[in-house]
């Protein structure tokens, strides 16, 4: 299975080397426990997220393409990104390069001049949750659980760009998640013993795109998401995107003031809960990194 072409290239993106350190460390723990191997792309650059494309189309294809080209050079057939924004812009670059010969030619000439290999748009882009789901499987995760999170109620929040739009992410095809009703995180959380609540806002926007630029919107959406999680009786809001995670967490002080303490739930990465269930300590899962007090709730429940 681990032939050279099957090797996964890991694209951490800027968040995992910055604010999202807890996500990185807990993902590494989970991957190690499940025997999933990934090789990090050395010398990667920012993928441009959704910001660069308003300045220039070509630049917004060139930046992610360089990372994909490096992955190809490493002999990988797939790039794994932990961030919805990265999954979006890498997938968008693939689409731009494969659907238009002119764009492909232009981007390749930029790549060559920047000292990167040419790229034909043939490296698959995957979110880390899809890799865990596909490689380890629900059964594999269940077998690895040392300390099931029995009695912990979680609301799974996928965010916007994980499956959307399917023309970039390929959602709904092959082994990918359903574009309108994603369920991979629900299944993984059930596998580690948590109770998954019905959460209709799982793919709503969190306002993270304008986290600081449009405060009314980003606070409004974060509050709506937390409120719905609280209404559904969840103990945690579980996330899989460093931007969404940061946005909702950093808004908590404002939400507390505007809507009251009772709507707020601690926010954790899905890999943090998985690491806990696999027997790692709260410290190893880096729960103290979170601005919201996730540790307290877990302590009260005896974890």
């Amino acid at each position: 299975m681990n032939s050279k072409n099957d090797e996964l290239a890991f694209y951490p993106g800027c968040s995992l080397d910055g604010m999202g350190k807890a996500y990185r460390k807990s993902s590494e723990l989970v991957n190690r426990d499940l025997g999933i191997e990934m090789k990090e792309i050395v010398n990667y650059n920012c993928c441009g997220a959704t910001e660069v494309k308003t300045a220039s189309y070509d630049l917004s294809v060139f930046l992610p393409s360089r990372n994909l080209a490096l992955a190809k050079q490493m002999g990988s057939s797939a790039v794994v990104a932990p961030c919805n924004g990265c999954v979006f812009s890498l997938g968008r670059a693939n689409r731009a390069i494969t659907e238009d010969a002119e764009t492909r030619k232009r981007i390749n000439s930029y790549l060559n001049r920047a000292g990167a290999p040419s790229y034909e748009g043939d490296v698959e882009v995957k979110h880390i949750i899809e890799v865990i789901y596909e490689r380890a499987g629900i059964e594999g995760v269940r077998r690895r659980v040392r300390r099931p999170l029995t009695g912990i109620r979680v609301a799974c929040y996928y965010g916007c760009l994980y499956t959307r739009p399917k023309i970039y992410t390929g959602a709904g095809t092959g082994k990918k998640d359903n574009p309108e009703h994603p369920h991979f995180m629900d299944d993984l959380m059930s596998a580690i013993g948590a109770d998954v609540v019905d959460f209709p806002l799982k793919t709503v926007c969190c306002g993270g795109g304008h986290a600081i630029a449009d405060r009314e919107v980003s606070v409004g959406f974060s509050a709506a998401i937390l409120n719905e999680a609280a209404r559904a009786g969840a103990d945690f809001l579980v996330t899989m995107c460093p931007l969404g995670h940061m946005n909702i967490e950093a808004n908590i002080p404002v939400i507390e003031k505007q809507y009251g303490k009772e709507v707020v739930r601690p926010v954790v990465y899905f890999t943090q809960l998985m690491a806990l269930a696999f027997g790692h300590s709260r410290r190893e899962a880096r729960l103290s990194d979170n601005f919201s007090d996730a540790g307290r709730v877990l302590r009260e429940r005896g974890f």
Partner: protein
Amino acid sequence: MPIHEKHLIEADKIIEKEKAELEGRDVSGQWNTFIEQRILSQYEPEIFQKIYSRPEGRTINRCWQCGTCTSGCCMHTDFGLREFNPRYFIYLARIGDVEELKKQKDVIWRCLACNKCVERCPKDVRVEEVVHAIESYMRKKGWAPDNPASRWDDEYLRNVMKTGILDEISLLRNYIRDEKLEEFDTHYMMRMALKLLKTGRVRTGPVRHRTKGWNRIRKVAEEILEKDGYELKE
């Protein structure tokens, strides 16, 4: 012409026509109107051509105005900003209604790029990209001023162009400083900084993550920006 069941019609929808003739018959009197008559005198077909000629706006001509984008739009439906209407933005850009388009300047930049519209469009219009193309075209033409989102994007790009990798903390710090956002006072920032320091997420000192060979890549990036007419402000 008499209007039956006048009580069903709102008063301001009734107009008086003193002398009206239709095919030789006198139809003067009170009329019910749903839509005010108006004449569109200023329109610029160039808007459509310009949007269509950009790769991000290429799909604008596929739109058949069904409104699927607007009905699910998170700004329109979830946030409840009724003036935010992607179907209408596309309509205006296509007929080239400059005056009406200019009225959208305080609304159109608020698109969050959640891509629900792109996902659901039955005609594969990349609505989100088209809307952003219209928005930046309006700014380029001077029909709309810079806005908080465009300034954020500028700051983001400036940050990335330094080393090839985004430094979130300096991005946040610079943007909050330049926009003079009062909400993030010294107390809030200190609390955030302390937490980040404690958990080892602030790189102390001047050393930033850097893509090796970035100088060479940056030259190409600058060239692309110049080609696309984007000015990177220092």
